[in-house]
């Protein structure tokens, strides 16, 4: 059997990769994907901890996280489409109307 810590470490690694993606990629939609990756890394940690504690509530939280992620994806992609239609770009460097 695999020690549960391994799962958590894997989760941390995936999370860090997601963070790096958010910081390094310029395409908004890829940043969004990286955020999904972070979310899933956290989900993995939840399930691993739930397993460790022998209770299913970790899974319930992940279930809600998935649901919220679905809502987030719908709205987020809607925003991305609206942004693209108005600005003709998804480059995060160019989407900075809110700068000084």
């Amino acid at each position: 059997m695999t020690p549960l810590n391994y799962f958590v470490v894997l989760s941390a690694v995936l999370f860090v990769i997601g963070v790096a993606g958010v910081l390094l990629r310029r395409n908004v939609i890829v940043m969004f994907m990286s955020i999904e990756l972070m979310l899933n890394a956290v989900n993995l940690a939840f399930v691993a901890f739930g397993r460790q504690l022998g209770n299913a509530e970790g899974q319930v939280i992940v279930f809600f996280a998935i649901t919220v992620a679905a809502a987030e994806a719908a709205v987020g992609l809607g925003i991305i489409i609206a942004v693209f239609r108005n600005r003709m770009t998804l480059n995060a460097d160019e989407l900075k109307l809110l700068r000084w």
Partner: protein
Amino acid sequence: MTQQFWPLGLIPLLPLGGVLFALFGGRRGGRRAVNVVAPGVVGLAFAVSVWSLARLVSLPAGGALRFAAWRWIAAGPFHVEMALRFDALTAIMCLVVTGVGALIHVYSVGYMGHDEDYARFFTYMNLFTASMLILVLADNLVVMFVGWEGVGLCSYLLIAFWYTNPEYAYNGRKAFIVNRVGDAGFLLGIFTIVYALARGGVWTVTFAGMSHQAALLQPYATAAALLLFLGATGKSAQIPLYVWLPDAMVGPTPVSALIHAATMVTAGVYMVTRLGFLFTLAPAALTVVAVVGAVTAFFAATIAMVQTDIKRVLAYSTISQIGYMMLGAGVGAFSAGIFHLMTHAFFKALLFLCAGAIIHELDGEQEMGRMGGLRGSMPITWLTMLTAALAISGIPPFAGYFSKDQILEATFASGHPTLWLIGVITAGLTAFYIFRLIILTFYGESRVEPSKAAHLHDAPAVMTVPLIVLALLSVGGGWVGLPRGFLWGEAFNRFLAPVVIPPGAELATPGSGLALVMIAIPIVGVAAAVVCYAQMPGLPVLVAYKARLLDSLLRHKYYVDELYNAVIARPLFWVAAYVLHRGVDGAVIDGLVNGTGLTLLEGGEELRRTESGNVQHYALLYLCGALGIGAYYLYRVVIR
């Protein structure tokens, strides 16, 4: 004993209702509605006052009516009720204020008949009356202060009623500011009293409550009394704060009548009387009151002798007469002072209203040099004004005689012969200048501009009826205070006795010689006026030439305004302009404000560079924050 009597609340509330009506419904309701409502509410207030008086009389002597509306201020042990009190003193004041006030309101209907801003005018008038009623009905010092400030505000509003004229507006401000000086003294007086009582653990500002705390008040009585008297000099136009009153003549004449006769200037006298228990604890302060009163009376009378503006003569006469009242109060004859206040209200209101009628007829002409010979064309005005002149001169049996006589007798009896002498001389001067006014106005050749002279006639009934009523009062108003021994002798004093400190026992034995002097002096004054202005018109000019210096001094009102300007106003202006405006305001306050703004602005300019608008920069900063938190936990958990 004190009885609860709710209609007391109506007395100030009725004029306040008139205020609301005139303010919000005045223009819409039209002139007619305002003309009915504004005097009507004051008349109703008079009726309620009479009702209250009837109730008061039914109580045993020394009783009072009281109406506590609600608890107004509650701060620890200190609490103030919004309460009204109606005793003998208040009764007289209330009747005078509402009665004379109502007549002036009726008169104003005619006087302001052509003014566009009638609604605003009556708003102020009603508010003025209401404030004065709050002042006289107040159960405690704090409520009294409300009325005190109210009349100050209204005097400002009314003096500067025709605010488009910069000089009028300036005079309004002057009145207000001078009053503020007095008000400051009044406030400090209140604080002193509260402090004095609170030291003894007594938390009260009601007159009834305070009057029983003589022992506590004693150490601070002089200071408190002098501070309060400073307030009184402001409101009642006594030396040194009288300067606003002559300038207040720029307001509409009914306003002058209201200020001089029924409200405002009498407030000081009323206040000193109401707080008589305090002043008697401080003989020095009382002496100050008496001296200030006498000097003011004489001083103002001398100025009045040379004034050519009809209203200014009356204004100085008011100052002078208030001086008499203060003198009376100062020598402990509070009821005499109040008596004179009442009779003065009648004849001074009458004088002003008559003057107003003349000014109204002459389209605003106030210079006596362009009057004269009006006796024929304005008979009612002539007769009524003559009545008032006789009353103010102190010719028996007109009202002024009895009250002035009482004051002077009390002054003499209290052991102030000098003050008595001043008073007597002033009485002569009074008779002189008032008949000078009568002669210059009604007798001799008409000096009226021909264009106006053609259609001169008496004012309409709405203005003359109040004149006639006031004339009757000027004649008979003094009879309530007949000297001891005549008919119902001293009824007025007896009525007031439970409230005011009774005058000394000496008052009971007036010297008949003094009485003769008191009758003779005004007659001399009248005769002098007749001789100077009717028989030998050149004489005044000659005298003025011979005594050029004195004449100049008088014409320039003893250079008091100039003195004040030089000593107080100019330095104040200088300080305001150079120290406060440029220094404090410009450098310090503006510097602080602008400096704050500039700092933020510049700081923002620099800081906004962090707002790149790039979401990844924000994410990076966010991550740095997370790293910080993580580092903290690492430190907490791992290192330790």
